[in-house]
């Protein structure tokens, strides 16, 4: 089974600091593999252990994304591919999906793509589904478990409080939830092997991407502003009247604030 896993390098938001204007201080911010993407890789490793095959991990980002890919090799990926080009910069989820899709088309001949449900910095959960759409693959999202006979794939899908089983023919794309597995501790032998491997860098021209759809210019959504919501100090207003009158006043207040 040839499995492609997409990962994203994100700021470690547990260590994020904000400046006086509420903007993210990026300088010196440590980066990590998006946590749920590690679960995606673990899911791939478990499928490989069962069915054999190979795992290719791909990530788009600036040069420093190499460290995330190196870590993926350490976890047990067979190969990794780094997608780095200034032309990719500023991509929204669609432009990202397009670039990843082009690279995956170049890899070709795959059985399965596995992604984390969403990245912890953007929380859009859009790249996986858009990638499936671009590649015209069946999408099996929010997976809590994966089974495969080598020709079809079944997942236990989490839909809020409801779960269901869905199935598709391979090739397909799965997005996984963090509850799907307990990803492995990076084994020492893989660490030693990982540092002997090369990490190829693919640019836009390498994946035959149409420049019109790449980066900021190719992004249909535009980011207007990033800000921290202002926290207003709470004001207390005591309401008087009968319980019914007070309930009506509460309802009116909530209505004024568009909260109900």
């Amino acid at each position, binding site marked *: 089974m040839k499995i492609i896993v997409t990962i994203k390098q994100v700021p470690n938001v547990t260590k994020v600091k904000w400046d006086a204007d509420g903007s993210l201080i990026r300088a010196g911010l440590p980066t990590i593999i998006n946590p749920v993407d590690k679960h995606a890789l673990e899911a791939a490793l478990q499928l490989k252990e069962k069915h054999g095959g190979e795992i290719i991990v791909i990530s788009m980002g600036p040069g420093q994304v190499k460290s995330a890919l*190196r870590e993926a090799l350490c976890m047990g990926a067979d190969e990794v591919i780094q997608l780095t080009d200034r032309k990719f910069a500023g991509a929204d989820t669609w432009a990202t999906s397009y670039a990843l899709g082009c690279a995956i088309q170049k890899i070709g001949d795959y059985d399965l793509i596995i992604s984390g449900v969403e990245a912890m910095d953007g929380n859009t959960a859009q790249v996986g589904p858009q990638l499936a759409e671009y590649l015209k693959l069946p999408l099996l999202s929010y997976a809590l478990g994966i089974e495969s006979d080598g020709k079809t794939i079944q997942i236990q899908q989490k839909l809020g409080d409801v779960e269901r089983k869905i199935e598709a023919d391979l090739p397909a794309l799965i997005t996984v939830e963090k509850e799907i597995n307990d990803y492995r501790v990076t084994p020492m032998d893989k660490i030693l092997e990982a540092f002997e491997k090369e990490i190829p860098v693919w640019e836009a021209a390498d994946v035959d991407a149409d420049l019109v759809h790449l980066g900021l210019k190719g992004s249909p959504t535009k980011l207007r502003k990033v800000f921290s919501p202002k926290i207003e100090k709470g004001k207390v207003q005591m309401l008087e009247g009968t319980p019914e009158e007070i309930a009506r006043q509460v309802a009116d207040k909530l209505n004024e604030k568009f909260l109900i």
Partner: protein
Amino acid sequence: MDFTLSPINKMVIKAGKDFCERRVPEIDAYMAEHGDYPPDLLERFAKASMLGFDVPKEYGGLETTNLNLILLIEEFGKTGSTCFLPLLMNNSVAETICHWGSEELKKRVVPPLCDGSAWATMAFTEPDTGSDPKMLTTTAKPDGDDFIINGCKRFISMANKPGYGVFICKDLSLAGQPHDSTAFIIDKNSPGISCSGHYELTGLDGADTCDIYFNDVRVPKENILGKPGEGFNVLLRWISGERIQQAAGMVGVGQRAFEESKKYSLQRIVNGMPMGYMQGFYWMLGEMKVKVDACRLMVYNAVTRQDAGKNFDTVSAEVKIFTTPLIQEVTRMGVQFHGSYGYSKEYLIEKLFRIAMHQGVVASSLEINKTIVGMTALMTK
């Protein structure tokens, strides 16, 4: 000397931290409840490929540096858990067998130590000796193609766990010769072996240490490690590495004692400000940090010599002499830092203090190491 860590070293540390954060709490909880290691502990280490660092790949090892091993051990030391002692033992005994053993022994015994299916043991100490080979009373008597072992070994880690041990015995075939101790590899499941219950130790909570008794235990001659009469040399070389690894764990203990004290000093408010900002306390923090950093450099220096293939017997004894009192002092300061809480089992610092106490008396005493370094200095021209 440049101790800049390589990307591989840093990844080893990262993986070690991850294991300590996500796996050790469950292991430690088992040990607290049962007073023993989880039966599958070695499998857990093997799954993370943590056994056989300095062992050739052909025998199931990683064939990497001892530096990587001690970086990992420091992370374990920071947890305050004792669970890494079997990891140390399997690593060091496998390396020892690779150094001294015949090809047949290496192929037979080392792979199970690296894949976690066998628990390693190293045994010299007896009721009446901890460092003098002339005082050994556990005997090995030749009998055809075998030796017959009789006697007792004391304070032996993992003695009652299935696997292989290196046991240093008085070799009766060498009676009257100046060097009469021989190292034997013995399957701990052999008929005639029995063990006492665990010793209750001051620290090292959950560690499995007991006496092991040999009653006419038959061991084939092929299981001799090194040559007959080299038993004490096998022990000395092994313990030189063990002292460095032990010190690495204690550097982790000291580092954690420092970090716990720093954390406490920022949480505890005295006269309207965190107590860490009072001069008496930040002076203590400064002193603790310097001591731990200096100990770490001593460990790095020793392991660098070991990895370079240079003699490291004396330098590892120096590590013990230097680090033992300093780390013990750092953990004592940590207890003092926490006030009454530091004397309570509610706080980790109490456990760290008790662990640090073992370094002066386990895996050779502090004093015997002073003898090694002092006598070496005297005899070096």
